[in-house]
């Protein structure tokens, strides 16, 4: 493709976006076609929430104890970590020994965070 590197760069995203929107349209089209041909016979009982065949018990939003909610917080820690690790990993040689030591320190500190959570018993079925 005879064009500047920047336009090549942007066009590959454009292609991905076209691909994605085509997927969106395809799914929508299928659902629309099915809406046209499928039967639609209303009956109040059909729209009850499923609870193994008996009438649903309790209100709309049932409360339940969500275990492992703290994992979402830990996940944020490791995902942000990945954001820092990925660019470094693609350019290891350029940063040399200094970068390596830095990375050891960085990951060490993060692992300490995981160890802290572990020791506090957060990672257990509480």
């Amino acid at each position, binding site marked *: *493709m*005879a*064009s*500047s590197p*920047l*336009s090549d*760069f*942007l066009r*590959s995203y*454009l*292609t*991905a976006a*076209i*691909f*994605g929107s*085509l*997927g*969106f349209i*395809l*799914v*929508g089209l*299928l*659902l629309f*076609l*099915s809406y046209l041909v*499928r039967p*639609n016979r209303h009956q109040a009982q*059909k*729209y*009850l*929430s*499923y*609870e193994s065949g008996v009438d649903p018990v309790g209100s*709309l939003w*049932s409360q*339940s104890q969500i*275990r*492992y909610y703290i994992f*979402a917080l830990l*996940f944020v820690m*490791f*995902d942000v970590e*990945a954001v820092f690790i*990925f660019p470094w990993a*693609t350019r*290891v*040689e350029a940063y040399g*020994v200094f*970068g*390596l030591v830095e*990375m050891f320190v960085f*990951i060490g500190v993060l*692992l300490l965070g*995981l160890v802290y959570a*572990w*020791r506090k*018993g957060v*990672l257990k*079925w*509480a």
Partner: protein
Amino acid sequence: MDPLLSGDIGFAEILIVLIKVLIAFAGLMVGVMLMVWFERKLVADMQNRIGPNRAGPFGILQTLADGIKLFFKEELSPAKSDPFVYRLAPFLALVPAFLVFSVIPIAGNFSGDNTGVVTIAGHETLMQVADPQIGILLVLAMSSIAVYGIMLAGWASGSKYPLLGSVRASAQMVSYEAALGLSIATVLLLAGALSTNLIVNEQAGGRWNLWMTGLVPFVVFLIAATAELNRPPFDLVEAEQELVGGFHTEYTALRFAMFFLAEFMNVVTMSAVIVTLFLGGPNGPLFGITGWVSDYLLPSIYFFGKLFILLFVFVWFRATLPRFRYDQLMDLGWKLLIPLSLGWFLLVATVQVSQDQGWNPIVVVTSVVVIGVLGASLLRLSIRTGNFRRTEESEEAEDSHMSPKDPGGVR
């Protein structure tokens, strides 16, 4: 002028993009159909059953028949559901599954000085729909968005089983996403780029990441991918015996089919990602042949062959392994896979830098391994003392009869 539009965009370029998009779509849909049939047939074989054998030869059209049936079924959405989010969720589940496939190179000659570039009607292009420079980040981003599809589907249904399923799903997928990302980081150390084309190019000539990174990241990635896909033995999200159908209990007709399709499409695309990252993509011996055989035929045979083996492995897992308990699942992710992949990442990084600096590799590897083992044992010790102290405290509390016991704790 906007750089997106500068330069010449010929008719041929647009046509090539369209053809690639169509081929990818068609290939993916057919692949998913075959995968559903293949899985049912193979599991049936492994369980000494016959499996689907009515629609078409060997029941190969069974998926199509099921799809057509669901197309004509009445759709029910529960009265208590959130209408907009309930309708949005199937899109969020299916579209990311499509998008991941757009960055997978499925053919092209990568041997020698070739970089997978093929020439179609005078235009140089790659055998993948798009090659953004952040290719592998796109894969990660899409697998994160797929979590939304499942989470919102369960939440919007306004029913108990789907809600429980989606809560499980989000915790599970989020946990394994971390291990997934960290094992990719090890591949990036060797490839030095995020683009999928360059990652495959790096593995040319039998330098597959499978052994170049020392097998461990591959195993971690495979396990994390299985969990990410909610495939057995990690299918707690839709554990039939506990949660009826999990997050899609309240979905019927074609919307249910969308989730089903998304699930199998994710299996196919995730296998393709593994092939790209670890098994050299379309790389393989070309026997010195040039021309269209080495550009399209042989590489695509290698690619789909590797894909097929991985799909077989996923089905094999399902037929062989019993489901994990939820706390075992979380322990595996957080206490084994994440520390392991982080440690291995540091090991590979050190080896990489030491090669660059010309240090003695044996000394470097031994010292890193010694440090790693020391660190791991320190960690174990620290956690053990932590556990010990906590049990002592709780015993004291029990003796004094002062603290109420965990009221909502169901084991």
